[in-house]
Structures are given as C-alpha cells and as structure tokens.
C-alpha cells in the first residue's frame, strides 16, 4: 500500500506541475522517476521516451503506465494514472464550472479575444521547425493532409492509417532488400 501511495504521489506532482504539455514536462518526469526515486535507470528512461513518443496518447500518461506497471502491475499502473489525471481533471472541472458562467463577462471576453491569435501562433511555431528537416515530398504529403482535413472536414484518422500502411510497406520491402535486422 505504501509503495502504491508513493507512486500515486510522485505522478500527482508530475500531473500538477507539467504546464504546456509534451516536451516541456520531460525534465520534471526524469527528475522524479530517475534522480529521486531510482525507479528507472538513465538508459531505461531514454528507451521509455522513445516508446512513449511512438505510442499514441500523452507522454506523461504513457510514462505513468510504464513505471506503475513495472513496479506493481495493474494496481501500480492505476495508481500512476490516477496521479497524472487527478490534478488536471479537478482544475479543468473547476474552470469549466466557473468559466461557463463568466465567459460572457466583458473583461473575460476581451482577454480571450487577445489570447486566440496567440494560441494560433503557438500552434504554427512547431510546424516551421518540423517542416525544415523534411524532404520536399514529405512536406507535400503534410501540406496535402492539412488542406484536405481543413477544407473537406475529413477525419485525420484516415491519413494516419494511410501513413502507417505506407510505412509498413516501405519497411517490408526494405527488409527484403537488405535482409532482416
């Protein structure tokens, strides 16, 4: 029980203090899991990051399941997930309850009118960096995906499935040429 509480508490901290999501939270998770608790070695943490990024879902959630399950199987995974989810659940629920009452307040509306273009800027920023490292035909696929999803309202799920299928075919053909890894 004590160990479960420790897992829950550690991931509660991770859930409560990781603002902005994604890569911003990696140093905090590393500090808690590797430096403080010694649940994973430096190397295991590196492997975990690769897996957590390749698997669907938020990185913090994937890390929580990995560490929790490794130590206490299902109950450990559940304790870790609850830890990550509870702070954001409680805070957002409070925001949702109060924001729906305040959203037509003059000042709140003005603030959100200022924030909306800044949110768009935050979304645009990583696109430039990601597109820089890609070959021209990959950029073309990205652009085609963006335009089709935006203009026709097609679910991006179909593009993910198509991309995954192309990647599988490519891996299989390449495997035949150079032999198995």
């Amino acid at each position, binding site marked *: 029980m004590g160990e479960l509480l420790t897992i829950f508490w550690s991931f509660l901290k991770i859930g409560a*203090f990781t603002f902005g999501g994604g890569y911003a939270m990696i140093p905090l998770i590393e500090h808690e899991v590797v430096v403080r608790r010694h649940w994973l070695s430096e190397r295991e943490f590196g492997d975990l990051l690769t897996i957590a990024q390749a698997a669907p879902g938020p990185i913090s959630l994937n890390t929580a399941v990995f560490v929790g399950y490794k130590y206490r199987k299902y109950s450990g995974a559940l304790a870790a997930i609850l830890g990550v989810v509870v702070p954001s659940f409680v805070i957002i629920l409070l925001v949702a*309850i109060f924001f729906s009452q305040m959203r037509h307040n003059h000042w709140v509306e003005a603030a959100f009118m200022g924030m909306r273009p800044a949110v768009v800027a935050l979304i645009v920023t990583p696109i430039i960096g990601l597109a820089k490292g890609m070959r021209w035909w990959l950029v073309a696929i990205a652009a085609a995906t963006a335009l089709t999803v935006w203009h026709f309202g097609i679910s991006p799920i179909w593009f993910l499935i198509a991309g995954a299928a192309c990647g599988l075919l490519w891996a299989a053909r390449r495997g035949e040429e150079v032999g198995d890894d």
Partner: protein
Amino acid sequence: MISTLLALFVSYLKIGFFGFGGGYAMLSLIHSEVVVRNGWITNGEFTDIVAISQMTPGPIAINSATYIGYEVAGIFGSVVATVAVCIPAMTLMMLITHFFLRLEHNRYVRGVVMGMRPVVVGMIASAALLLILPHDTEGQSFIDGWSWAIFAIALLLSARKLNPILLIVASGVAGVLIYGF
C-alpha cells in the same frame, strides 16, 4: 443522455487511440470529433479551451476531455470522456511494458512511425488552418488588425522559445487593453 455519453466515450476513445505525435497534432483530431462531427462546441470555444489548456497543468488531450465532457453532459460527461481518452494509452502501454518490447529496434514499428510523421505535421498545420480560416463565422480567432498584430508578435516570441504560459497571459492582458475599454 445515455446516447450522448456513449458518443462522448466513443469520440474520446478514438482521440486516445489515434493520438499520435503529441498535443498539437491531437488538436486536429479533437477538432474533427467535437466541432466537425458532433458539433458539441464552436470553433471559438475550441480555441478558448486550447488557451485554458496552456495555462493549466496536464496534457491537452485530458484537459479537453474533462472540459468538453462537462460542457456536453455535466460531471458524468467529464468523467466518461476523461476515462475514455486514457484507455488506449493504458492498455497499449501495459502490453508494451509487459512484453518489454524493444519497439524502437523493430523495423515495422519504425516504418509505421516514419510513415505517420508527415501526416502528424499536416495535422498540426490543419489545426492552425482551421483556426485561421474557419468555415463558420462564429468565434473567429482573427477579427481585426490587432489580432494579426498579436499573432505576429506571438509567433516571433514563440519561435524564440518564450514560455507559452507567459505568452498566453500577456496576450490576454493585451486583449483587455485593446478590447476592454
């Protein structure tokens, strides 16, 4: 009520399962489910939720699940959506941890990840497009020259790695100064 809860559950299960590529890539998936397919919220509300997510801790997938779940079906809705978005990551990561699959060395997994990469970049771009040029006129992010000025400044600062929370708060203050008086 039950059918709404079921629809919420299915939508967030999909978002969780296809949530590859992290927060911003998931935005286009979330948008496709909650704005385009089910019409639970408007474009403007969607942008506001992204802004709120940036200022509160936790992954955007979980934040949006809790918030939209509440908007659509109260506290029950927020619990159902939050649990649903966690299920795919939970089960997949448990399998991966259990068998300790060295996924990064498997060429098929590498192929799938590589095939999805341009799609993920396209998904982020489509989220940006949907907010810059929405199909409906309600809750547009860009309403006048000030919006574009905030966007340009935010883009510059965000490219220079300014903390996103600071950026959102500053643009909110700018909004109050510009539109409040």
